[in-house]
């Protein structure tokens, strides 16, 4: 009870701030009746377009146009050399009916998402909690934990990773030292995917920083009130931290899930671009790349890209739907 009332108290000034700010902005024009002494709307819009033009130009030429072309190509047979020929829905039907490797790649991707995302978020949250309670050196550790996120996406780290998890690599030696003989992870079908997932988990810096910001938003009074009521640390975490943090958790979950579906570089580097060993790291994007650039089926690859977009859209929509039952927004409670 104590926490809901505080939540209302803190959210109130925030919700009031917005309208007052808007009034102030309108206030300068408000001295005269609206529309007098101001250029017509169209002219003002003109200036806006001029300023926006670099972005609009970039978005159109570099994003929208290629997307439109890729949508068109997804209905064609295109090998990069001969002009694309229209095949209607054949690429799409082939994906669903004839392509066993595609299903394999979907399975691998889902497995990867289910392993990497929860592990990464848990680690990020744990690190954020540890950082929050830290009195000295917080900014140093924050930077230190964040560093892998800056490096991790690069090809070179993926190659280092491959060396670490290879036969006679660091991991192999350490495990052998304690009597576990697995050998190199990256060249065994049962272990390769896990080594890729760990590379992603290690890059927990971005969600950690967001978690940390979220944690610092939780009013201290709640914890004090809970302490007075005799709540222990676990109770505080489960009843205050988690609910108050749920919007941030949700945000991180959506973001990391979307990213995980698109995993490419680590798998590409670790498997030398083939999704091996024995297709065990053949992720959807890797297969897409292979269809497009190794076997020159650009039409098919485009169709795959659109299916990926659709799938990510659906997964995100599902996440949003479920969020209603577990995400707690402090201000919605007050309204």
């Amino acid at each position: 009870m104590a926490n809901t009332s505080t939540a209302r108290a803190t959210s109130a000034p925030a919700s009031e701030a917005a309208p007052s700010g808007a009034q102030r902005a309108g206030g300068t024009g408000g001295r005269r009746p609206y529309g007098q002494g101001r250029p017509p709307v169209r002219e003002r819009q003109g200036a806006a377009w001029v300023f926006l033009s670099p972005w609009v130009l970039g978005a159109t030429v570099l994003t929208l146009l290629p997307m439109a072309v890729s949508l068109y190509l997804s209905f064609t047979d295109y090998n990069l050399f001969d002009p694309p020929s229209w095949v209607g829905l054949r690429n799409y039907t082939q994906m669903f009916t004839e392509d066993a490797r595609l299903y394999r790649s979907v399975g691998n991707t889902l497995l990867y998402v289910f392993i990497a995302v929860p592990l990464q978020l848990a680690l990020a949250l744990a690190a954020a909690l540890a950082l929050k309670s830290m009195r000295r050196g917080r900014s140093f550790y924050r930077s230190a934990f964040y560093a892998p996120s800056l490096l991790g996406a690069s090809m070179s780290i993926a190659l280092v990773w491959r060396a670490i998890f290879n036969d006679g690599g660091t991991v192999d030696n350490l495990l052998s030292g304690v009597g576990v003989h697995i050998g190199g992870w990256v060249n065994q079908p049962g272990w390769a995917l896990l080594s890729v997932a760990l590379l992603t988990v290690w890059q927990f810096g971005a969600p950690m920083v967001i978690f940390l910001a979220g944690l610092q938003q939780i009013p201290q009074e709640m914890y004090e009130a809970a302490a007075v009521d005799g709540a222990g640390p676990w109770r505080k975490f489960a009843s205050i931290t988690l609910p108050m943090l749920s919007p941030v958790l949700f945000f991180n979950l959506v973001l990391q899930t979307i990213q995980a579906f698109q995993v490419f570089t680590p798998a590409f580097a670790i498997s030398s671009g083939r999704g091996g060993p024995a297709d065990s790291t053949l992720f959807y994007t890797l297969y897409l790349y292979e269809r497009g650039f190794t076997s020159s089926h650009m039409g098919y690859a485009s169709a795959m890209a659109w299916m990926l977009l659709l799938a990510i859209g659906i997964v995100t929509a599902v996440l949003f739907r479920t969020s209603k039952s577990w995400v707690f927004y402090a201000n919605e409670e007050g309204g």
Partner: protein
Amino acid sequence: MPRPRTRASCAAAVAIALCATLTGCGGGASATADGKVTLRFTWWGNTDRAARTEKAVAAFERAHPGIDVQTSYSTYDSYKQKLATQAAGDDVPDLIQLDYRQISQYAGSGVMLDLAEQRKALPTGEMDPKLLKTGQVGGRQYALPMGVGTQTVAYDKAAWRAAGVIQPQAGWSWQDWVKALRQVKEHRGTYAMTDPGAAEDQFEIWLRGRGKQLYGKDGQVAFSAGDLARWWTFTSKLRKEGLVSPATDTTQMSGSVEDTPMGRKLSVAEFNWDAPSAGYEAMYGDRLAIAPTPTGEDGTFGQYYKPSMLLGISAGSEHPREAAQFIDFLLNSDKAADILGVDRGTPVNSRQRSRVLSSVTGFQKQVARLQTSLRGKLDPPPAAPPRGDNGLQSTFQRDYDQVSFEKLTPREAAENFLTEARAELRP
């Protein structure tokens, strides 16, 4: 009223200035200030080849001060992908190196210049007509072979000798080969050779030794699933006996010598092409030796002389004459021959060939000796692989992965490969 107008005109001015800088950046290097002609030349290869090529390019630029050659190189896999993308975007470099597997695709799609147009700048009279044919599509010469190579067994001389195996000679059979592997394995206590099952090149040698071919005249697959299943059963037996590398060591091969079991010093022998075997020198020094590949039951040689790579001019080149001069220099001049040696295989120009074969040193001398010893014994190269063959090498390796990790039987994997091959080679 006046205020917004100024603001709008300011905005316009800023936008114009922005556009100006952007176009300024985009201009590129097409127009050089001193009127030099710039040629772009791309190839694949390792650092050793890069060093030799750069040296040859510098010699060409000294001889032709008006021409500037910009070079770039990468590994074969990424080269292939980049070039295909450039072809789609009409941005093919002036001079491009092609594999025998690419020529049908590139010449057939109008990407390459018919070299007959530059006959004056690029004489081919001293080149072996049989080899010139490898750069022809539909009777037109689109590219010239840069060198000739053949398959070999590269091995660690010291390790083999310690096991009591004497230097294998041309004409040794697959049985002799297995016997040698068994001997080396017993002496070393671990596998002797890299599993050859994953490489289509090795399958081709074995297949040709049995009198068959990868592709027929119609551009379709000319072997059966039974043939491929037999090969994979053969290699699987060797693997299970511990004569060749296990799946976990073979799966990482990616086209560069450093990633192979022999390059990682796990095995002491490996199939490879002759000139690229120079890559092992860094690990084995003068213990490195090469032998001809095993022959079929009746002594039929499976290996053949293949154009190691071809060099051509893009149809869109603005300076075809200068490009032709460059090819002429690289393939016909003494200077380039002395610099390049047999790095891209032995020269195709017969005069340069004898010059190079008698003057090379170090490992290149072994390549020269091997090629001389096989002279007259090998069949002419098969016709260029058909369009669509491009991706099949990786399909082959991938399907064998399923066999070596024992997820599929040789027969099942062979059926899979043929299904995909037939789909890719659809006319």
